[in-house]
């Protein structure tokens, strides 16, 4: 009897703990303001956008933008780092409030997420091994080309890239790869590419800043041709809170007008990426 009673007590305690964690479907902005904390989802392995710095804290362009947004909302910022496909899957259920992760607003993603504001544009470029013979982007036709899984770069390779944002320059598909290889992140693709031309990969499509960052760190890569497209990069939130959406849009507009965004871009990339060319 004693045992049974004890088990009931434990069960009741467990149920209490479980129910305490249930968050009710409340409006995102209200939740942020009442908790005083803006939970931001971002990648921890995507320098220079977001990474762990020497003090093992989150740092980078996206992280600085997120901090600035939180400051303008008057709340604290907190970072969570789920994998990219979990962020882009939508249905966050209040686990985090905002993604500042350089996300391209594609039509597919717009079905599950809202994009309050585009905050900068990065050129997407093709990289090959430094010793490879290719001269133009079309030389990679029929060869093995890599990109991050579920990224715009992979969509570009699959000729399935539809960007849902204003002010995006038109582009055309310049590669018909023989084999599309998917990677967990662009660093993994560059690690395969550095082994030599054709060892595992012949080329890759990735963001220009990331490739330049790798070249700076002695990766034997070079950029092939001009950028293949300019991708607008946006904040993303879960669907359903128009007020939060408008608030974020006005904060980004203010940051752009005051030159804060350009300054951050200069700080992290050395180039002002805040407008498309």
């Amino acid at each position, binding site marked *: 009897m004693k045992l049974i009673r004890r088990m009931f007590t434990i069960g009741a305690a467990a149920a209490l703990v479980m129910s305490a964690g249930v968050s009710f479907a409340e409006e995102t902005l209200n939740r942020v303001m009442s908790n005083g904390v803006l939970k931001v989802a971002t990648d921890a*392995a995507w*320098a220079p956008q977001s*990474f762990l710095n020497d003090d*093992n804290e989150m740092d980078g362009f996206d992280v600085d933008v997120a901090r600035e947004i939180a400051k303008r909302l008057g709340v604290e910022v907190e970072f*969570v780092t*789920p994998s990219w496909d979990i962020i882009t899957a939508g249905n966050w259920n209040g*686990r985090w409030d905002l993604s500042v992760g350089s996300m391209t607003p594609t039509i597919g993603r717009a079905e599950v997420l809202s994009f309050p504001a585009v905050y900068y544009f990065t050129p997407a470029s093709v990289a090959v091994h430094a010793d490879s013979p290719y001269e133009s982007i079309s030389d990679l036709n029929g060869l093995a080309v890599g990109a991050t899984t579920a990224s715009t770069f992979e969509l570009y390779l699959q000729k399935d890239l539809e960007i849902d944002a204003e002010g995006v320059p038109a582009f055309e598909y310049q590669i018909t790869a023989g084999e599309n290889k998917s990677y967990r992140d662009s660093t993994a693709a560059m690690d395969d590419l550095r082994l030599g031309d054709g060892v595992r990969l012949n080329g890759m499509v990735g963001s220009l800043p990331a490739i330049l960052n790798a070249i700076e760190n*002695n990766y034997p890569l070079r950029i092939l041709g001009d950028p293949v497209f300019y991708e607008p990069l946006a904040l993303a939130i879960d669907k359903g809170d128009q007020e939060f959406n408008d608030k974020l849009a006005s904060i980004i507009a203010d940051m752009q007008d005051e030159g804060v965004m350009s300054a951050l871009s200069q700080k992290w990339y050395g180039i002002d990426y805040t407008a498309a060319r």
Partner: protein
Amino acid sequence: MLFADTVVSEPLVHKPKTLGIMLLVGLVVFSFFGLSDTIFGEFLRPVIGEPSESGLFGNVAVGLVVSMLFVGNVFLIGFLAFRIQVIVVWVELLLLFLAFFYSFELNYEFIQSKIWFMISQGVMTTLFISAVSIVLASILAIIGAVAKLSSNGFAFAIASFYTSFFRGLPLLMQVYLIYLGMPQLGYVIDAVPAGVLALTLCYGAYMTEIFRAGIQSISKGQWEASRSMGFGFGLTMRKIILPQAMPLIIPPTGNQFIAMLKDSSLVSVIGVWELMFLARTLGNKDFRHMEMLITAALIYWVMSMCLELIQSRIERHYRTKSH
């Protein structure tokens, strides 16, 4: 040792025929790999000339030297006592391993600057998740084992459905399913509890089978004897069956714990900052992932070795108790 032989004969590795065969096989294998462009080729430069131009002759010459080194090593170690042999071979393999890592030209300063964070944040989280999961999985496993041995069809059906389902899915998929699926049921689960839940359910299923096998291995006579003394089910289980089943259950359970320690790395996909997650992210900015991966690999290895030691202690404890 499999079988203690009392017939004294020369060790196998001291017979000329064995040594000759080993030398020949080594020669063929090492020549086939073409080691003349490695450090051994550099040593033999006076004999074979420019290593890169020595061709087949160079490869065979280097193969012969490497093979002779190997056979000589085996021959010499053959003279030592068993314990010393084990230690010497361990040290040799370890040195080879270190030489292998050394050839990557790792940046040790970088490792030094990150290792403390890897331990204080990564190892602690990994150990926490594994320890909580193994305790919960053990409780689940006892309930599951009793249910699987029950004559109640309802209990048996639930337990066998559970073990079949959770042993039949990849753990990574369970992590995703729980993390993304639970909110659909109205409960938003955090990353760490989701990871613990996935590990608990998966390993609980495996351990159910271990516990069931352990309980079933106790002969029917034990049940009958305790029944005849008037013991009920609970008392028989606690006082008669489990104490005898434990020595059989402990070794595979220890294995499960070691396996779980490593499988907890799968939780990194939902953003838990455990050891694997840090290994993948800490080196990202400076492109030093090889450093971080090797450091994490060694940390995992050391942790597993500690657990193996603990396991053998527990096994010894139960062995002395039951015999």
